[in-house]
């Protein structure tokens, strides 16, 4: 696959041709062969999370930001911070009316921050048209009142990373397919000192992407279709909680209550746990550091890793929660047009591609077109299931619309805490009742 140089030449050629067609924005800028008249020293400040694939951040900061800066005639400053700190940063910025021009938005945050975001429908609809449309999850989460208030960027799929050889030892040549099988396998492995690792802490990624699908797949839900009635206190939800209690005691590393999103990666790489729900980062990092990360036989660890889809079968269905994300342009920003131009530039196929490839399946694009990318046929077999992972994801607030109230419930970790309280000893019915009370304060206030 050719690198940046050819891309730029190709890009400039094609836009030179497009210059014949009267157009505004990027094409016009490049056709005029000079940078637009931004004020001298204009900086575009973008705040994103620290990507779990360090190479992707490297591509963004060292390749894409300078290139975009040249193309747009301004300095692009990409700041990456701990994902759990993005939300407080956004709150502070909105309240003080000053801060980054573009913020990384997770899940359905555009619903929560709708009063402070700029309408980016023109950018979003253009990209969607060109690239065969966004995945279904973005419509309820990034679109508010018919307007796109966030520009979808990518979806981080998750799956269970597991040690093939260990599961074989306890009689599972393939990863358990049902909830009951998982219980059996992990119980056997925990007896050998290799438990399943799952966090139930207050962390944005691994905890909710386990908890919500567990509830959904057993048939539970936060609200009914209207989104106004809390229905979480059901037999199905209680059953899912009882399952979690059993799995926790029999098969899980009980330290998981204090884990954040990095602990399971570290524990897996250290050979402390047999499997864990995660994005593709465990495999990718193990592969990229194959000289450092070895298994107990001294072989590169990544060779013993494979992935299985989550959630498992055996309940009422299989409904995952993937980490969909994108960018929002802030209303207080003085560089709104520049910000939109940057997003337009970023999502051009030639520019998005190096970032997409650096992710190697950890993040997939927000548009469905990228499923056809040749990278998928070339990447390792364990990573191939991430190609279509993004198609099926739900978003929280189910079964109602994914509103700001659903975000509030997520930010308060109510569903996660329901399971956390239960595994700490609370009766399943009481834990569910607690969650119902808390959710009612939000949805039925």
């Amino acid at each position, binding site marked *: 696959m050719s690198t940046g140089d050819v891309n730029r030449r190709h890009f400039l050629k094609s836009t030179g041709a497009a210059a014949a067609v009267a157009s505004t924005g990027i094409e016009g800028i490049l056709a005029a062969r000079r940078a637009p008249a931004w004020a001298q020293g204009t900086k575009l400040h973008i705040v994103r999370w620290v990507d779990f694939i360090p190479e992707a951040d490297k591509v963004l900061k060292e390749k894409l930001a300078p290139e975009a800066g040249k193309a747009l005639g301004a300095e692009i400053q990409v700041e990456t911070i701990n994902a759990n700190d993005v939300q407080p940063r956004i709150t502070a910025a909105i309240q003080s009316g000053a801060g980054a021009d573009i913020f990384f938005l997770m899940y359905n945050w555009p619903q929560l*921050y709708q009063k402070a975001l700029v309408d980016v429908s023109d950018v979003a609809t253009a990209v969607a048209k060109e690239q065969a449309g966004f995945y279904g999850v973005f419509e309820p989460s990034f679109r508010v009142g018919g307007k796109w208030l966030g520009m979808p960027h990518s979806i981080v799929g998750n799956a269970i990373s597991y040690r093939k050889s260990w599961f074989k030892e306890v009689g599972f040549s393939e990863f358990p397919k049902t909830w009951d099988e998982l219980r059996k396998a992990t119980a056997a492995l925990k007896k050998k000192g290799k438990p399943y690792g799952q966090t139930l802490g207050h962390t944005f990624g691994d905890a909710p992407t386990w908890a919500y699908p567990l509830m959904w797949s057993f048939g539970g839900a936060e609200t009914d279709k209207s989104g106004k009635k809390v229905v979480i206190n059901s037999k199905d939800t209680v059953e899912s909680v009882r399952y979690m209690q059993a799995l926790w005691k029999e098969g899980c590393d009980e330290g998981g209550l204090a884990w954040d999103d990095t602990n399971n990666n570290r524990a897996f790489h250290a050979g402390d746990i047999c499997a864990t729900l995660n994005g593709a980062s465990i495999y990718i990092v193990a592969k990229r550091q194959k000289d450092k990360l070895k298994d107990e036989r001294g072989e590169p660890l990544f060779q013993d890793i494979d992935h299985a889809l989550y959630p498992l079968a055996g309940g009422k269905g299989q409904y995952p929660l993937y980490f969909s994300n994108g960018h929002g342009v802030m209303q207080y920003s003085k560089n709104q047009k520049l910000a939109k131009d940057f997003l337009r530039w970023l999502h051009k196929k030639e520019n998005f591609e190096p970032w997409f490839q650096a992710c190697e399946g950890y993040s997939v694009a927000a548009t469905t077109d990228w499923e056809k990318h040749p990278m998928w046929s070339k990447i390792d077999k364990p990573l191939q299931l991430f190609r279509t992972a993004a198609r099926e994801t739900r978003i929280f607030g189910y079964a109602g619309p994914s509103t700001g109230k659903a975000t509030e419930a997520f930010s308060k970790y109510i569903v996660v805490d329901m399971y956390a309280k239960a595994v700490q000893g609370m009766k399943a019915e009481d834990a569910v009742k607690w969650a119902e009370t808390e959710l009612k304060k939000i949805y039925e206030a």
Partner: protein
Amino acid sequence: MTSPIAREAGRAAPLEVALPRPGARRRLGGGMLENERALAAVLLAPAVVLLGLFIAYPFVMGVWLSLSSTSVGNPGRFVGLTNFVKAWNDSIFRTAFGNTFVYTFWATIFKLVLGMWLALLLNRHFRGKRLVRASMLLPFIVPTVLSTFAWRWMFDPTFSVLNWLLYQTGFIVTKVPFLSDGTYALWCAIVVNTWRGMPFFAITLLAGLQTINPDLHEAASLDGANGWRRFWHVTWPLLKPVTLVVVVFSVIQTFSDFQLIYVLTGGGPANSTHLLATYAYQVGVATGLLGEGAAISLFMLPVLFFVVWLQLRYLRRLEGA
């Protein structure tokens, strides 16, 4: 006009003596430097401005926020005491409220006892006394976030060096859930806070000890008092005022502690180690419900106010007696 002294001295040679003359005052900045009231106002102004800007203004804003339905991006409207009622009925708030008292109470007791003990030890003469006194301050000086990160690493659920040590020396067979169990986690936080705050107590009490006349101890021991009785009947009464001051400061800081819990546990597991400050942050800043967050944090005010009032009243009585 010359003074008698000058006249005497001046018999030998005329002495030029500069004496203040009535007109001089006006030449020195319009009398401001001589007028005590004006000077006091000028000198206090910077402090008042700083206090007003960084303490009073945020406080008033906080009160206003707590009485409104403000959330991130929404200015909100006046809702009276709704946020306070909502907080009071919130089970997580009640846990945080209780935790704050438990945390403050036990940490203060430990810091006082250990700090006093350390101060008594350091009050003696021994080789390297200065070095020990200086290095003892390190836990207090090192930035909280930094030291708490180190402690968090030591308590790590998977890689804890303490668990490893206990396991290797045969004291335990399964991992101690330092941070993954709510009760353990709160006590870990108390331990870290004690470790951090003990030097503050020690150094302040040491200063107090040094003002006690050693003759009093001598007299007491001559009268047959042992170490404990000397402490209880001589040292402690004289140390009470200093102790009260340091306890007030410590209670205020510990009750409103944020950094330590935020870094050590984040309020987890499952909200079981939240203090009022960290929960207010989670609700107000992380979730964006600023009005509710402000209300939660304001619950600290009456408690702290009462503590300060009680202890100052006791101090005044002590000094009066």
